[in-house]
C-alpha cells in the first residue's frame, strides 16, 4: 500500500475522509430539513492569488501555551497550528494528505508504518528536517515526563526507528489508524531535535509551518511572519498574520465592522448581528464538536438504561438546538454529524421529537412512575452548555424528573470531572454537560469512552457493553473503509439505545471573514488551517 502525494490513495482513514468531503455536502442538504440554513464553507474568490499584506485576525481564547506536545487544548492548537506541521495533514475536502511525509507504507498487518519524508523541508531556523527530528519529536510526546494530554492519539507506537535520514519506521503494538493522529496535529508537531531542551516552547517555537512566530504576548497578541523557505511553494501568500486576543464577542464584532480585523470566530448570536454588514462574509458549516451530557451510569437510578433512554426521549432535540445553539447546529449521534461519512444520518436519529408519553411509560417500567431528583453540572464558561441543560431541565419536568442545575466555574468543573474519571464514577456527579471536539478518527469518539478498557470510560468500569467492545476492536483492525463504517454505525446505534451519554447536536463552525481576504476555506476540524492559502485582494 504505497502512498504518494500526487495520486489519490485508498484504505484506512484516507478514503473515508474523502467520502466525508462529499458527505459534508449531503449533511448540509439534510440540514435544510431541520429548518437551518447553511452557506457554503468556502468564501467567495475573485482574481488570482498574489503575495503580500498582513491579516489581522481575532483569537477568541488566549492560548494556554504554544508547546505543540503539551499545550494541546484547542486554543493552543489554534495558535501553534500555523507554526508547526506533522507527517500528514487535512486538505479542504477533509482528505488526509501528505505533509512532512511524502508517502507512507503500512505493512505487517497494519502494525508497521514506514514514512518517506519530504526532502529539503526547512525549519524556521534554516535547519533541514530529517528523520532524527521526527523521532525526537514523537519520542518526546511518548515520554511520560512530557505529560502530553493527547498521548493516547500516538501511544499505539511502540518504537520509532530512523532507517535513513529521510525514512522513519514506526512499529505498533496493535493496528491503529495512525495517519489521522498526525493530521489531527494535537501533540504531533515536528520540532528540531533538541529544541525542547534549549527553548521555552511555551512562548517560543521553531517549526516547519507556513508562518514563523515573531512575537507572543500572552493575553494580547501572537504575531507571525511568512516562512520564506516553506516547502509548499508558493504558499503562504500573506507576509504575516497577527492574532489579537479578543475574548469579548462584541469587541470582535465591533472590530470587524470597523475594519480593524479581517477574521473572527463567532457564535450564532454574534453572526446574526453581522447579517447584511457590507464587506463581511459569514461562513457556516457543521464541524467536529458534538454537544452532549456525560452520564455516570454506575449509580441508581441512572444505572438503568431505560431511565436514561426515557429521559432522552422526553427532550426535543430541535428545541435544544434552537434554544442552546440558536439554530446553528444539526442533530448528531456519538460521531459528530459532518465528520467524514462516519456519522449516522441525522434524519434517522432517535428522539428528534420528544415522546413524553413513551418516556413516562418507560420510566414507570423501570420502577419510577413518579420520577426522581437528579443533579446536572455545567459551566458558564460555555453558555450553550448551560442553555442546553436548562432546556433539558424544563423538558424533564413533564415526566416528573426534577433536575437541579448546578453551574460551576470551568476549573472547578474540570476538576470534578477528572475526579469522577479517576474514581470510576464513584466520586463526582451523575451528569455533566460538555462536548466532544475533533478527533483524528471515529475511533476517538468511541473507544476511550465506551470500550471497557477505554481511558475515559467511567461508566464502563464495571459495566461494559460487550457488543460495542467487539465492534470497536474489529473496526480498529480493519482497513476496509466500508467495513469500518458499518461497524461504527452499528456501535453508534447500540450506544444511542443504551444512552450512556445524551448526544444532542453538532455545532456549526461560524467564521466571519472580510471580503478582502480571498481563498479562505473552513475546516471541519474547526482549525484555521487554510489561512495559509489566503491572500488579500
Amino acid at each position: 500500500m504505497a502512498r504518494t502525494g500526487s495520486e489519490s490513495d485508498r484504505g484506512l482513514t484516507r478514503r473515508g475522509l474523502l467520502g466525508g468531503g462529499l458527505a459534508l455536502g449531503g449533511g448540509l442538504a439534510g440540514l435544510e430539513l431541520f429548518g437551518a440554513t447553511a452557506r457554503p464553507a468556502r468564501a467567495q474568490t475573485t482574481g488570482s492569488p498574489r503575495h503580500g499584506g498582513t491579516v489581522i485576525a481575532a483569537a477568541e481564547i488566549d492560548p494556554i501555551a504554544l508547546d505543540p506536545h503539551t499545550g494541546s487544548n484547542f486554543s493552543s492548537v489554534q495558535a501553534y497550528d500555523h507554526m508547526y506541521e506533522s507527517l500528514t495533514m487535512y486538505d479542504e475536502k477533509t482528505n488526509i494528505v501528505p505533509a512532512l511525509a511524502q508517502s507512507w507504507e503500512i505493512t505487517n498487518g497494519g502494525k508497521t508504518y514506514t514514512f518517506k519524508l519530504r526532502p529539503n523541508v526547512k525549519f524556521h531556523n534554516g535547519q533541514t528536517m530529517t528523520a532524527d527530528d521526527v523521532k525526537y519529536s514523537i519520542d518526546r510526546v511518548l515520554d511520560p515526563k512530557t505529560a502530553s494530554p493527547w498521548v493516547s492519539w500516538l501511544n499505539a507506537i511502540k518504537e520509532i526507528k530512523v532507517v535513513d535520514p529521510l525514512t522513519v519506521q514506526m512499529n505498533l503494538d496493535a493496528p491503529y489508524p495512525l495517519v489521522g493522529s498526525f493530521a489531527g496535529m494535537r501533540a504531533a508537531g515536528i520540532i528540531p531535535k533538541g529544541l525542547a531542551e534549549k527553548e521555552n516552547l511555551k512562548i517560543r517555537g521553531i517549526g516547519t509551518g507556513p508562518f514563523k512566530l515573531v512575537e507572543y504576548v500572552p493575553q494580547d497578541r501572537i504575531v507571525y511572519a511568512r516562512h520564506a523557505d516553506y516547502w509548499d511553494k508558493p504558499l503562504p501568500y500573506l507576509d504575516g498574520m497577527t492574532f489579537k486576543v479578543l475574548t469579548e464577542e462584541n469587541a470582535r464584532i465591533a472590530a470587524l465592522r470597523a475594519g480593524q480585523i479581517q477574521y473572527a470566530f463567532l457564535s450564532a448570536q454574534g453572526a446574526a448581528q453581522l447579517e447584511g454588514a457590507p464587506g463581511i462574509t459569514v461562513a457556516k458549516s457543521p464541524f467536529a464538536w458534538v454537544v452532549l451530557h456525560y452520564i455516570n451510569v454506575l449509580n441508581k437510578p441512572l444505572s438503568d438504561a431505560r431511565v436514561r433512554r426515557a429521559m432522552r426521549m422526553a427532550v426535543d432535540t430541535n428545541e435544544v438546538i434552537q434554544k442552546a445553539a440558536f439554530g446553528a447546529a444539526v442533530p448528531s449521534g456519538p460521531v459528530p454529524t459532518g465528520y467524514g461519512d462516519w456519522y449516522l444520518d441525522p434524519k434517522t436519529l432517535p428522539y428528534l421529537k420528544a415522546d413524553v408519553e413513551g418516556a413516562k411509560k418507560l420510566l414507570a417500567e423501570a420502577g419510577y412512575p413518579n420520577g426522581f431528583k437528579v443533579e446536572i453540572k455545567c459551566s458558564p464558561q460555555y453558555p450553550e452548555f448551560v442553555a442546553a441543560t436548562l432546556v433539558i431541565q424544563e423538558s424533564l419536568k413533564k415526566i416528573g424528573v426534577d433536575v437541579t442545575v448546578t453551574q460551576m466555574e470551568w476549573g472547578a468543573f474540570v476538576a470534578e470531572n477528572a475526579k469522577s474519571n479517576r474514581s470510576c464514577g464513584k466520586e463526582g456527579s451523575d451528569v455533566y454537560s460538555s462536548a466532544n471536539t475533533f478527533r483524528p478518527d471515529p475511533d476517538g469518539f468511541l473507544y476511550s469512552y465506551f470500550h471497557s478498557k477505554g481511558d475515559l470510560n467511567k461508566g464502563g468500569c464495571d459495566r461494559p457493553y460487550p457488543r460495542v467492545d467487539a465492534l470497536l476492536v474489529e473496526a480498529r483492525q480493519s482497513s476496509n473503509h466500508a467495513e469500518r463504517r458499518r461497524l461504527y454505525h452499528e456501535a453508534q446505534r447500540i450506544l444511542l439505545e443504551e444512552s450512556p451519554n445524551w448526544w444532542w447536536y453538532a455545532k456549526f463552525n461560524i467564521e466571519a471573514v472580510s471580503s478582502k481576504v480571498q481563498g479562505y476555506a473552513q475546516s471541519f476540524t474547526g482549525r484555521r488551517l487554510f489561512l495559509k492559502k489566503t491572500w488579500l485582494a
Partner: protein
Amino acid sequence: MRYLARRALWTVVALLGVSVLIFLLVRLLPGNIVDIIAGTEGQLSREQRTAVLREFGLDRPVPVQYALWLRGMLRGDLGWSFRSGQPVAQLLVSRLPVTIELALLTVLGVTLVGIPLGVLASVSRSMRVKTGVQIVGLLGLSVPSFWIAVLLIITASHLFGWLPALIFVSPWSDPWVNLQQMFLPVLSLALGLSVVVVRMTRSSMLEVLGQDFVKVARAKGLSARAVLLRHALRNALIPIVTVLGLQMGYLLGGVVITEQIFGLPGLGWTLLNGVYQRDYPVVQATVMLFAVTFVVINLGVDLLYTYLDPRIRYE
C-alpha cells in the same frame, strides 16, 4: 513619626495576613493546573499527573510551598508562571504600565469631572439639575462598568464606525494612538465612579455651605467664587478624598474585567487568566501587588488629611 512607625508595622502584619490568605484561597479553588491542561477530554495517566505536579512543586505540603514562596518573595523572586514559563516578576513589570495608566487616567477623569459637577450641583437652585444629578447618580451606581464597556463598544462601532487600534501601543511610542485606545476603557470605568464623586461632593459641599464660617466669609464680602473654592471646597474635600482613595482600590477590581473586554494587556487581565488557568504564582503575585497598592493608597489618603485639614494630627 511614632505614628508612621506603628502604621508601617501594621502594614507589614496586614500584608503577611493577606499573603497567607491568598495562598490558601488559591489552593482552595477546586481544580489545579493539571486539570486545566487535561480538560474534560484530555487523558493524563496517574504518573503523568504526578510528574506535572512535581514539576510545579505542587507535590509538597502546603506550608512548605508557602514558606518557599515567602522566602522567594522576600528575595525579590516571585516564581515562574506555570503557563508561560516566564519569571512572574518580568511578567508583572511588563503589564504594570498599562494598568497604572488606565487607573491614573480614570482617577484624573473622575476628579476633573466629578468635583466640578458636584460643586455645581450643590450651588444650583434649579430643580432640573438636582433631579438630573439624582437620576444619573442612581443609574451610575447601579450599572456595572463592564456593561457600560460593552455598550460603549457597540455604540462606538455601530453609530460612529469608530474603534481605536487593537494592538496596544505604549504612550511613549505613540501617545495619540495610545490615548485613543485608553478612551473607551477609561470612560467605562470613570462613568460609574464619577457619579459617586459627584454625589459625595454635592452633599459634603451642602453641609459645609450651611456652616457659620461660610456665612462669616460671605458677610466679610468675599466674592462668591472665593467663598466656594477657597473656603467651602477645601473643607468639603476630606470625605471626597476618602471616597476617591477607596475608589482607587475598587478600581483595581474594575480594571480586571475592563481590560479583558477591551483586550488591554494589563495586570487585571493577567490576574483573571491566572485564575482561569490556575497559574498559582501569577495569581499570588498579582493579588499581593494589588494588596500592597491598596495599603499604600490608604496610607497616602490618611497623610493627605493632615495637609487638607491642619487640625488633624496623628499621635
